[in-house]
């Protein structure tokens, strides 16, 4: 057939050549489509990140107003040798108000005075109080202190409120703007990195609100999740892969583990509310319950990842150990598990990252409450990062806009860090055979 005559063989080459053209064209199109998808994905990612980043920037700096205050013991209402308790109850607000009134002596009307006093943050008096508690010898002295500015002042300084707008369209009125400008001219206004954002809990005042409470809440929640789900999931995966008999019951369990992974997370939240809080009376809003609920969610993820990691261990390794007379247990724990560890760890960290970003089930168990105190343990009421984002995004004050984006950045930072650790661990423990 093939060697009948040269003519037909010529034809064949031509045919191949023709079909080659088509094949190359298809390849080109496929490549182009692939490139396009990747470029589109990257562009969207960059837009998203750039948007978050630019919006978050203001939250990382803090406007301060420097004032000279007279810390007179009589003025704040304490004796000569005040105890810490006395100082806690002392009236530091008055000292700050006096300082402002001294700076702007022409302000007389009650209403105007109230405006004047709102230049500094509500937190300024606590700032002063903490300073004096730290160093009581400051009493009776004249000192210069950089007070946290109110969020309106902050917005003006950062340009979030446009000074050129007509007064009726502006949140900050002309008079207040004039004060701010005078303070600016006298060099009393400064900006610094906002450490406060990382060292304090939530607040109703945007300039005082910090992310630390949510970070610690997330940390405690993930700790509980990890402690519960990792050992259980790995044990389940080992049993199912290595020891379980092959029968219908085990098949049934397998199917249900896969189903569990597909259950909408809010359902777990309802379960947590009904079982752990209402039935077992565990504390509401606590990382303990949050962690238990999230571990129900991450269990299937870790089990599935661990099983595939265990399955991927070459059978020759098991045979080598068994052939030497190692028992099943020894084979699993000395050889299979170490070989599967990178995969198991990767799966675990991915499960944890999922848990870190989870919001819905935690809403159901009350972690959405407004909590100012930074949690100290797994039973303290707290919130978590994604819910903090949700709470701030929901707040009307414009100062929270930047805080929201900043919280998203913190969340993304932890997610990226966790994924980086997963990749690092996989590289480190990966062994060749």
């Amino acid at each position: 057939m093939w060697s009948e005559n040269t003519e037909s063989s010529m034809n064949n080459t031509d045919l191949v050549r023709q079909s080659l053209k088509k094949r190359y064209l298809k390849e080109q199109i496929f490549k182009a489509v692939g490139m396009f998808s990747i470029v589109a994905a990257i562009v969207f990612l960059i837009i998203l990140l750039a948007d978050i980043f630019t919006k978050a920037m203001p939250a990382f700096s803090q406007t301060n107003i420097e004032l000279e205050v007279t810390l007179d013991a009589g003025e704040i209402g304490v004796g000569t040798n005040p105890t810490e308790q006395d100082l806690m109850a002392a009236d530091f607000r008055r000292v700050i108000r006096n300082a402002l009134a001294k700076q702007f002596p022409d302000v007389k009307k009650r209403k105007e005075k109230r405006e004047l006093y709102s230049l500094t943050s509500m937190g300024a008096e606590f700032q002063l109080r903490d300073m004096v508690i730290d160093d009581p010898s400051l009493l009776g002295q004249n000192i210069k202190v950089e007070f946290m500015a109110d969020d309106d002042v902050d917005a003006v300084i950062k340009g979030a409120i446009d000074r050129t707008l007509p007064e009726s369209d502006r949140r900050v009125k002309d008079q207040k703007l004039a004060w701010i400008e005078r303070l600016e001219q006298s060099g009393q206004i400064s900006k610094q990195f906002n450490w406060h954002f990382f060292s304090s809990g939530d607040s109703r005042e945007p300039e005082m609100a910090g992310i630390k409470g949510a970070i610690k809440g997330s940390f405690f929640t993930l700790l509980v999740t990890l402690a519960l789900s990792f050992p259980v999931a790995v044990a389940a995966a080992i049993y199912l892969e290595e020891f379980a008999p092959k029968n219908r019951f085990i098949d049934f369990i397998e199917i249900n583990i896969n189903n569990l992974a597909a259950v909408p997370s809010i359902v777990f939240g309802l379960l947590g509310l009904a079982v752990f809080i209402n039935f077992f009376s565990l504390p509401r809003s606590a990382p303990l319950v949050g962690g238990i609920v999230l571990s129900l969610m991450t269990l299937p993820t870790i089990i599935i990842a661990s099983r595939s990691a265990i399955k991927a261990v070459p059978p020759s390794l098991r045979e080598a150990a068994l052939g030497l007379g190692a028992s099943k247990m020894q084979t699993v724990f000395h050889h299979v598990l170490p070989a599967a560890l990178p995969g198991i760890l990767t799966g675990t960290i991915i499960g944890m990252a999922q848990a870190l970003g989870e919001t819905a089930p935690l809403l159901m168990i009350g972690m959405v409450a407004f909590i100012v105190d930074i949690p100290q343990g797994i039973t303290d009421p707290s919130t978590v990062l994604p819910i903090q984002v949700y709470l701030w995004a929901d707040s009307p004050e414009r100062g929270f806009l930047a805080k929201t984006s900043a919280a998203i950045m913190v969340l993304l930072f932890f997610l990226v860090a966790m994924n980086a650790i997963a990749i690092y661990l996989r590289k480190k423990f990966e062994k060749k055979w």
Partner: protein
Amino acid sequence: MNEAVLNDLAEPNKPDHAGPETEDSLNIEYTDTVGQPLCEEAKIRTKEVNVYYADNQAIHNVSLDIGENEVIALIGPSGCGKSTYLRTLNRMNDTIDICRVEGQILLDGEDIYTKKQDPVLLRARVGMVFQKPNPFPKSIYDNVAYGPRIHGLTRNKSELDDLVEESLTKAGLFQEVKDRLDAPGTGLSGGQQQRLCIARTIAVQPEVILMDEPASALDPIATAKIEELINELKENFTIVIVTHSMQQAARVSQRTAYFHMGRLIEVGETDQIFTNPAHELTEKYITGRFG
């Protein structure tokens, strides 16, 4: 060589052998095993062994004795059940769920398939070397020391060190690796890895060593080293070796057993099998007409 073989070699294009042989074209009735499957001083006796993978029978009624301190080679076409038979001898088939073994297998007169026989203890007495070198992803030292450690064969570190050195020396590997015992075993060449696996097996001091095509993944020089090693090991161990290479079987073994389609066709002295096979199937196999 006998005349039939020579005739076949002289006339390779005989019409009835033109195509690949099929079971029908061979048209040969199975008989009982020919030759001498039994021996006086048997280390392992297998009696009427049948092995099934689910409903599929892989070994049919095999009775074979393996003598003390002999090297016996199992040969036969691919898929004839050599590996399956070999793996029944140390119960490696237990790891395959669908595999079922019938019949009697006696090690030193004791049935190894009874309930009270512990497969872990059995595998310490009957070691195994696999077709593909499969060192643990650990150091060379730990590879060899693993068996003695789990069985508690040594009392202290220096005894273990000695045992590791001795095993590596017996496996002919010590000179090559003595400066890098901490290096990973997986970093050795294929032939070195296989000798490491042999060292690992003999470190447990088994009585029998099963080898499933131990040199099939190796080049001729590494193969020669392994064969040399087998010749030395037969002083102390009983060795059952599966091989595809008839030259190899001829070089290392005293007796050879020929398997075909799950049946043991012929057993005999290696010289006799290769020069004067008694069964027609054996003859066709060793003259290279199927396999």
